[in-house]
């Protein structure tokens, strides 16, 4: 009895093994399938993934209808969280369920290109000239253009007009103001921001000469990290002093910053445009201004550029590119600005009165114009946490800035090494 079982399983294993070798694979015609081949046929439908946000969707659905009117191509808008699109495309794309057009912040372009998820786009120079230079720069990876920019995002100084009449001219003045107007016991603060998040702090390190990756001929060199040079250390020292002077409480979260500001207990915060609506709903008279000069220079904040890209699985590259241009055209972005309040990437709109004369927007737009795009190479993924931790250690007085940054950069380097291993 035992033997017969043994033989049975042995022979089964044998069959599986043999059939593994026997699988002879797909029949391919040989020769490359015509991926290029002149102008492609006009598709019946284009599919776009838009961020899961009511206003974003409203705008894009409206534009989809207009595009259909213009070209006869139906556009299907599907909502997919902007930060989930890449992951989803890796699964949906190869199964033929993917879209033609996707969108995500530009700092994830590098990863997408390495994985082969999006394809380079070809447009005339007169098209790219229409956009703000830094936004086009953000859309490039390894010297090639991978998308068209739609909106820019930057943090700026938001202040409660009841508590701060005029935004200060320099950051030093701002800190002085904060020192006079902060009383943690009464939960009263002069200046608050999410200080333990590197995104909000970059401009301070940058102002003294810190940088993330060295830029050479439009390419970033991940081997040259400038986050523990003397400038960066001086910057972090300054941030640390704000914690030491009890201007900022450690462990501060986004939610708390907003909550306190809405209660009218904070004179100024550093935050993004996404916060404004909520502040106004709470009855605060909000003013927006570029961040005051730090170390004698206009602070260069990180800017995020939301772009539109063409999926590598799309068979309608020509029309998708056309659609991209339509969505980033003047009319479309103007409508988007009205619907979502996002700052357009186009030069002509940035100069238009609708943007320029809106006091709330102008502050962000001005700051965005002087900002620098977040690095879009995948090595950037290894930077955020270690640096944020370094800031936390300094904020809590556990480490000196020098030590903290040296440790962090060492960890970043190790992680990058592992990533490439």
């Amino acid at each position, binding site marked *: 009895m035992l033997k017969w079982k043994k033989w049975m399983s042995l022979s089964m294993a044998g069959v599986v093994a043999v059939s593994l070798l026997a699988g002879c694979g797909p029949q391919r015609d040989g020769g490359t399938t015509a991926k290029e081949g002149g102008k492609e046929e006009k598709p019946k439908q284009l599919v776009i993934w838009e961020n899961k946000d009511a206003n974003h969707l409203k705008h894009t659905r409206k534009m989809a209808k207009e595009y259909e009117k213009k070209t006869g191509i139906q556009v299907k808008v599907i909502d997919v969280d902007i930060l*989930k699109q890449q992951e989803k495309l890796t*699964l949906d794309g190869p199964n033929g*369920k993917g879209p033609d057009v996707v969108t995500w912040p530009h700092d994830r372009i590098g990863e997408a290109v390495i994985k082969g998820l999006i394809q380079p786009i070809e447009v005339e120079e007169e098209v790219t000239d229409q956009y703000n230079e830094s936004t086009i720069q953000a859309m490039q990876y390894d010297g090639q253009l991978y998308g068209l920019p739609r909106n820019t995002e930057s943090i700026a100084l938001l202040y409660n007009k009841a508590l701060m009449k005029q935004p200060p001219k320099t950051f030093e003045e701002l800190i002085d103001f904060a020192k006079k107007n902060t009383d943690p016991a009464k939960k009263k603060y002069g200046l608050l921001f999410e200080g333990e998040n590197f995104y909000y702090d970059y401009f301070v390190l940058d102002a003294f000469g810190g940088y993330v990756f060295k830029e050479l001929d439009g390419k970033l060199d991940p081997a040259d990290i400038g986050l523990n040079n003397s400038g960066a250390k001086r910057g972090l020292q300054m941030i640390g002093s704000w914690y030491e002077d009890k201007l900022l409480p450690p462990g501060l979260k986004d939610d708390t910053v907003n909550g306190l500001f809405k209660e009218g207990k904070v004179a100024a915060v550093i935050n993004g445009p996404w916060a404004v609506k909520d502040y106004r709903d709470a009855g605060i008279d909000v003013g927006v201004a570029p961040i005051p000069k730090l170390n004698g220079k206009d602070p260069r904040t990180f800017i995020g550029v939301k772009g539109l890209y063409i999926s590598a699985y799309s068979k309608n590259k020509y029309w998708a590119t056309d659609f991209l241009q339509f969505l980033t055209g003047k009319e479309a972005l103007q409508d988007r600005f009205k619907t979502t309040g996002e700052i357009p990437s186009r030069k002509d709109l940035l100069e238009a009165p609708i943007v320029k004369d809106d006091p709330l927007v102008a502050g962000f737009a001005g700051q965005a114009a002087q900002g620098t795009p977040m690095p879009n190479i995948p090595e950037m993924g290894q930077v955020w946490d270690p640096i944020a931790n370094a800031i936390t250690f300094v904020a809590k007085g556990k480490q000196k800035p020098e030590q903290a940054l040296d440790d962090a950069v060492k960890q970043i380097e190790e992680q990058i090494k592992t990533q490439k291993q």
Partner: protein
Amino acid sequence: MKKQSWASRIGLIVTYLILVLMVVVTLFPILWIIGASFNPGTSLFSSSMIPEKATVKHYVWLFTSPDSHYFSWYGNTLKISLINASLSVLLTAGTAYAFSRYKFAGRKHGLITFLLLQMFPPTMAMVAFYVLLNMVNLLDTHLGLILIYAGTQIPFNTWLVKGYFDTIPRGLDEAAKLDGAGHNTVFFRIMLPLAKPIIAVVALFNFIMPMGDFLLPQIILTSPENQTLAVGLFGFINEQFGQNFTRFAAGSVLIALPIAAFFLFLQRYFVSGLAAGATKG
């Protein structure tokens, strides 16, 4: 004699103190989130348990705003939860009954295997599920999702139910068999009703399961109208910018309602089962 009753009275007082304390600890977070859901504004920070200016605007938004899919999510989730609970109970009870009462090939090793399978977190499971459902054309369907839920719960719950079946005296079903009852009759008419308490537990588990899963539906359900509550809820609080804690709170309160209802409904069975156990003792 008197002394003893005195001691037991103190014991009883201590018991009540502990129990009441635990009730407070248990209820506090729940009451707190109910309070938060009636707060104006969006942030967790400014929420208080008893809001000064209570508002139902978050609830109104969830159900009436054209931007909210909450209504259809609610329906989807209830549907998935109910079907999953029934299917899982059937699968698990069948499997567990076989393991408890019959001898068959692979019985002993099967049980250990069940135990060990739970120890392996399938790190890459999301991709695997996607491929699997794509293959049988069940992507973006609730059935696909339910099949995965019903399958993954088998190992753990089989153990539970099997353990319960083991405590039911074998004399009961053997007597029925002697009286000429078939396998099906014994299983459905005798064993299942006796196992009501544990069946209720398994049903509750599987009813809650889809309500707490915010990962899998994101991968499997592509159309927004097919989504489930947990995904939507998690979105309220996980958005990188602009978290909406109070809306999340309102959504959570609403999610807890069907669970509480289901729970109280099953409570009947818990109690009847326990009573049966008590008379047996």
